[in-house]
């Protein structure tokens, strides 16, 4: 069973969001990294880029598949996790902590309300299997 930690919010596209005031840290879920298999490359947005909610802003590539990264919330990218560019395997090993992808300063905190709770996301992954 995929790990779905409490204390985070989730998107339908299998991303997680950790809110800290106006800043959201975004990554992909354990379910996502498991489906993709060994991740070989991650393409992240540029720092300073302005993202619109639910648009594709990067890519996670594994040996056999490629997945778009959608941003669950809109805003300006404040930080990206450059460590995973050198070692994409971290995203497989530790998707919720060291495997974080980018941080975005929300332009509309209300968007967070549209995200899924851990229970709702767990239900979604059960239906997908």
């Amino acid at each position, binding site marked *: 069973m995929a790990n779905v930690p409490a204390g985070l919010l989730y998107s339908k596209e299998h991303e997680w969001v950790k809110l800290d005031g106006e800043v959201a840290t975004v990554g992909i879920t354990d379910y996502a990294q498991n489906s993709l*298999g*060994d991740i*070989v*490359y991650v393409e992240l947005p540029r720092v300073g880029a302005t993202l619109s909610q639910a648009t594709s802003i990067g890519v996670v*590539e*594994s*040996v*056999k598949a490629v997945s778009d990264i959608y941003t669950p919330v809109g805003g300006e990218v404040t930080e990206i996790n450059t460590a995973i560019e050198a070692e*994409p*395997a971290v995203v497989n090993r530790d998707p919720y902590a060291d495997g974080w992808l980018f941080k975005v300063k929300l332009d509309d905190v209300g968007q967070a309300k549209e995200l899924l709770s851990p229970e709702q996301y767990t239900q979604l992954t059960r239906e997908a299997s």
Partner: protein
Amino acid sequence: MPPSAVETPLIFDTGQEGRANRYLPTAPALESLLAAGALRDELPLPDNSELDVVRHFTRLSQKTFGIDTAFYPLGSCTMKYNPRINDAMANVPALRDLHPFAPDRFAQGALAVMWELERALASLFGMAAFSLNPAAGAHAELAALLIAKAYFKKNGESRRNVVIVPDTAHGTNPASAAMVGYKVLSLKSDARGRVDPDEMRKAVGPDTAVCMMTNPNTLGLFEPRIHEVSDVVHAAGGLMYYDGANANALMGNTRPGDMGFDLMHLNLHKTFTIPHGGGGAGAGPVGVAPHLVPFLPNPIVRAFDAAGTAVDASGWRESAELSFALDFDRPDAIGTMRSFWSNFAHMVRALAYTYANGADGLTTVSKLAVLNANYIRASIRDVIDVPYDEINRHEFVASAQSLKRETGVRALDLAKALLDRGYHAPTIYFPLIVAECLMIEPTETESKETLDAFIAAFRDIIATAHADPGRVLETPITTPVGRIDETRAARQPDLRWRPPAP
């Protein structure tokens, strides 16, 4: 240990500087011919004796599996026997050494070859004309979409920018659409794996440009309502494009033109026995209905009778009585797809194959391709799931989904187990709508004994999967290498040898 199993060093790690072969007379030194600034500093390539080159590549060939080696049921690829007469004809010096800029009057035989093949394809598939210009199937697909784009632009309908593609479509279909700036709308197949005209009616609209389909589809199933689908798309003002990957299933039986397709491509390296050569070169003629002929890429081969009148023959006409010219002067043409006129050596091969068969022969080819595929399906359906268990055409799909649940053995593992038995695996994991998919296409050049031996091996592997799955999961064990670490290959790409640091 057989030599082929031993690791073969890279050609760069063998050889000695100066161990040259004498293929040409000795030239003056480069430094005496050009200023030093124009010359490169060094050329770090090896010098190997001809014998060492022969051994190197002979051993590499022994570690390569071809149709010549054994049965190769790779679905969607049509791995039929490549007759050697075709290569012999392509090697005829006058045709092999002909320069594309040779004036037409010195190239009449080559132009006759192109013209005869084009006329044959037009009749066989129900198109008004083909261009032999594109270099491969995906290339022809791109040409077809460029033709559609040009056609709509000329008719003031550039707003049409959506391509409708069934969810069973080959990956090149949406990729080609993207290269033309088109958006892709994926259409869900129905429960029987077909395209439903009523679903198509909901999907089309004023922005529909092209619907890309293949028939039989990638599940190997004939689309029985294809003409209704064509009517729906045409009524909405769109064009129908036929992906010719499965043309081996329908020669002499039905024609894309008669199904309502306006555009199509062929893979001569599938249906017409051009050798696959490890992944190319292919050849992809693009065919069109009459209203799209002006947009075909340049050049087109024109034929003239003894009086100099242009000939627009359909049906067989003796080329020896005609003269030919390349026509580049076509104002509505989409341009040209590649440096020169066609993969001409492959046109020679395809024409030789057409001569060997004639219309009756090609009709038989398709019928027996369909027979062979159904025979395998009927012979393994009791040991593996066949999601669409009905009369199929030249290929069919099986699914290892239940097998995986029951034993842990997946399509990938079945494929590797077949390698150990001396067979090439079927296509796996395509089309995407069938989980744990195996697509099996035997082709018509395989005998019943070959099919029976394959069926026996397949059944044995399935039995082993149930009895002792571990033995299947560890395959292949008899091949020169076992399963490869593909993650490492992608995470730490090593794509070339580097000269050792000085």
